[in-house]
């Protein structure tokens, strides 16, 4: 495992944006100046490269890492003793120190103020790491520059595993590799550990050997427990192990709650608790006071657990549909929003009015392809957008075909106009266009209009077709 830690910051996988911020921050130190925030907090899920980053930085720039683990060595004296080094330069001047405080989300509130003070006086870089930045004491959060490490994708994990296998000159069946990546849920450290297990222990019974690391599994378990208890304290405790933001957890509870409660008054009471939870989340979001999250969690767990009489027996837990719906309908929504934008701009409407207009457009597109085609050209809709309004298939194709016709006519007319302008220009600068030429040009334009707009050839199919054309320039 240690063997394949990244040696340079550049080798840390898929955290480019965060790495830029880290690089800028460490450059300040290297230049001999002190950055605005003397401490850096790297926040992110397990196994995304936080610790690796610290050691890669140290190796690259010749720092000695003083690693403190907030959860191991909690006594204030210890922290004090170590952190003293933060502002004492090595007398020999060879290795500057880099203080690394892991699990900063586990610092006892009592020590937080002291650490915050130490940060103020630090003359060497301090890096903190945490899975849950909102549980890092506020005093400390105020003193640090925060960067976020995102959860790695399955692809990232597979790529990293393949690289290790190459270096080790080992092979593992592809399915197994994918399985490891899948179970790791973005935790590269877990994946590398599993890979090691599989490589050393043989691949035959690998599936059983692998620890089940699926994050969502624990949500399923936690929710099943939550919906089985009437005990407020227990309800709070069961979600502790769930690695999820409170607003995600809220969606999970929301999804399953109406299957667990069946009496309307109980459902209403449970939702009352969720509503309160959401209000705490909203206030936390707006004010940056993430301490409020604990009340939100209280409401969505304990508040829901005590809401009423639950269904007896086995409860099946479903993942939130809303997230799925949102992902599924993303393409649709993008199309809809782009049509709405065009309607707002071209028809001078507010958003809500434009949304309403979409429904009228649907009716028009369904029943009158000719009229629809004019809307398409007027709004400059794309073929995909036409399909959104008319449905995929024959109808959309017919409308689209008609718009091409309109475009052709428009182009023809514009070219004619251009030619006349050009012809007029060719007669020489300053010279007047002769009456005769002008009249001829006008006649030609008129001929084009009358021939092509359908004014003179009304109602092949429908009587109203002739009325569809607006000769707005009746100057």
């Amino acid at each position, binding site marked *: 495992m240690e063997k394949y830690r990244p040696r340079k910051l550049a080798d840390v996988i898929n955290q480019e944006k965060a790495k830029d911020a880290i690089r800028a921050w460490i450059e300040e130190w290297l230049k001999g100046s002190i950055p605005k925030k003397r401490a850096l907090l790297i926040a992110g899920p397990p196994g995304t490269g936080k610790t690796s980053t610290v050691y890669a930085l140290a190796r690259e720039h010749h720092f000695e890492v003083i690693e403190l683990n907030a959860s191991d060595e909690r006594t204030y004296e210890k922290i004090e003793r170590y952190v003293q080094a933060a502002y004492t330069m090595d007398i020999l001047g060879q290795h500057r120190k880099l203080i690394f405080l892991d699990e900063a989300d586990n610092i006892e509130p009592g020590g937080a103020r002291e650490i915050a003070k130490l940060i103020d006086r630090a003359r060497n870089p301090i890096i903190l790491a945490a899975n849950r930045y909102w549980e890092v004491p506020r005093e400390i959060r105020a003193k640090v520059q925060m960067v976020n490490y995102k959860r790695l994708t399955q692809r990232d994990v597979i790529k990293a595993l393949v690289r290790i296998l190459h270096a080790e000159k080992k092979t593992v069946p592809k399915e197994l590799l994918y399985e490891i990546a899948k179970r790791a849920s973005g935790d590269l450290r877990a994946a590398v550990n599993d890979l090691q297990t599989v490589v050393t222990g043989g691949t035959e019974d690998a599936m059983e050997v692998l620890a089940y690391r699926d994050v969502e599994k624990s949500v399923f378990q936690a929710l099943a427990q939550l919906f089985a208890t009437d005990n407020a304290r227990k309800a709070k405790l069961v979600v502790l192990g769930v690695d999820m933001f409170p*607003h995600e957890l*809220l*969606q999970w509870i929301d999804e399953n709650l*109406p299957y667990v409660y069946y009496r*309307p*008054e109980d*459902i*209403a009471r*449970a*939702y*009352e608790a969720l*509503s309160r939870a*959401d*209000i705490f989340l909203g206030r936390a979001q707006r004010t940056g006071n993430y301490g409020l999250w604990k009340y939100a969690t209280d409401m969505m767990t304990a508040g829901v657990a005590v809401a009423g009489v639950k269904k007896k027996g086995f409860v099946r837990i479903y993942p939130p*549909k*809303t997230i799925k*719906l949102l992902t599924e309908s993303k393409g649709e*929504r993008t199309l*809809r*929003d782009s049509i709405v*934008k065009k309607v*707002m*701009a*071209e*028809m*001078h*409407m*507010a*958003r*809500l*009015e434009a*949304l*309403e*207009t979409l*429904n*009228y*457009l*649907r*009716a*028009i597109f369904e*029943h009158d392809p000719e*009229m629809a085609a004019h*809307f398409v*050209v*007027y709004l*400059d809709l794309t073929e995909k957008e036409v399909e959104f309004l008319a449905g995929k298939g024959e109808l959309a194709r017919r409308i689209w075909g008609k718009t091409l016709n*309109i475009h052709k006519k*428009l182009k023809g007319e*514009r070219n004619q106009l251009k030619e006349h302008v050009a012809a007029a220009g060719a007669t020489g600068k300053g010279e007047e266009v002769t009456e005769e030429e002008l009249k001829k040009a006008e006649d030609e334009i008129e001929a084009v*209009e009358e021939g*092509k*707009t359908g004014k003179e050839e009304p109602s092949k199919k429908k*009587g*109203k077709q*002739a009325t569809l*054309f*607006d*000769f*707005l*320039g009746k100057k």
Partner: protein
Amino acid sequence: MPEEVKEVKILEKPWVEKYRPERLDDIVGQAHIVKRLKHYAKTGSMPHLLFAGPPGVGKTTAALALSRELFGEHWRPNFLELNASDERGINVIREKVKEFARTKPIGGASFKIIFLDEADALTQDAQQALRRTMEMFSNNVRFILSCNYSSKIIEPIQSRCAIFRFRPLNDEDVAERIEYIAGSEGLTLTEDGLQAILYVAEGDMRRAINVLQAAAALDTTITDENVFLVASRARPEDVRDMMKLALEGDFLKAREKLREILLKQGLSGEDVLIQMHKEVFNLPIPEDRKVALADRIGEYNFRLVEGANEMIQLEALLAQFTIMGK
């Protein structure tokens, strides 16, 4: 679409655009406002304006017509339309204003006009920023702010604007215009059809014309049946269904409907609340229940503003409906 295309005669415009009055005098039902706007046009000077009133009564039309009469044929480059709810964040608006104000008005005008629709969609802070922007460019730009409720516009902006309250249109005004359009388009407008249009339009001229055009797509004879058919797609039937399901105690079905409305149809949580509030008084329930439900809707509107996830708050509201339906 490119500007020149619109001026070419082969293309049919949407009727709301085709029949948008070009001159102030042609605006329906707002005589008190038109009189003063014409005065601005005549003198060639005006203060910032605030247009308040319900949708579809002529606010945008008045702004466009005023610009035409002020600037004549040069009106287009002197007129910028922005939408507060569209341009997320005041910064986008500010940039666009800056860009627009950088160049001189065309055609000898002494100022340009910026029309900001849905100004009441801006937050208080954004409105403060807007106020500064208005001041910064007041040399060569006049703002026309449009909103549904002037009370949602902060005091300092109100005090810098001449305020015009657009009245809801009465049925006679709408009927006259609809009859005129139906005539021009060669439609047969039945009396029932006209009454149906007036019913669904609720004094909103834009909706009336849109419904007319959609119904015309079905048949050249405008019947009440077709009007209700096209209008029901747009009318918040779904919202009413959702409320009914909840009142009948079927929370899960109601929740499904809600998700469809929010995620598929793309209404915002606040849109849904507005529709619920409108519909609640049409529900077949005892009168005191209507009032109680309106009160609940108000409460959850408040919570929606306070909270983080609209879906949760609306679901909680539906859960309230399930107990009040009994």
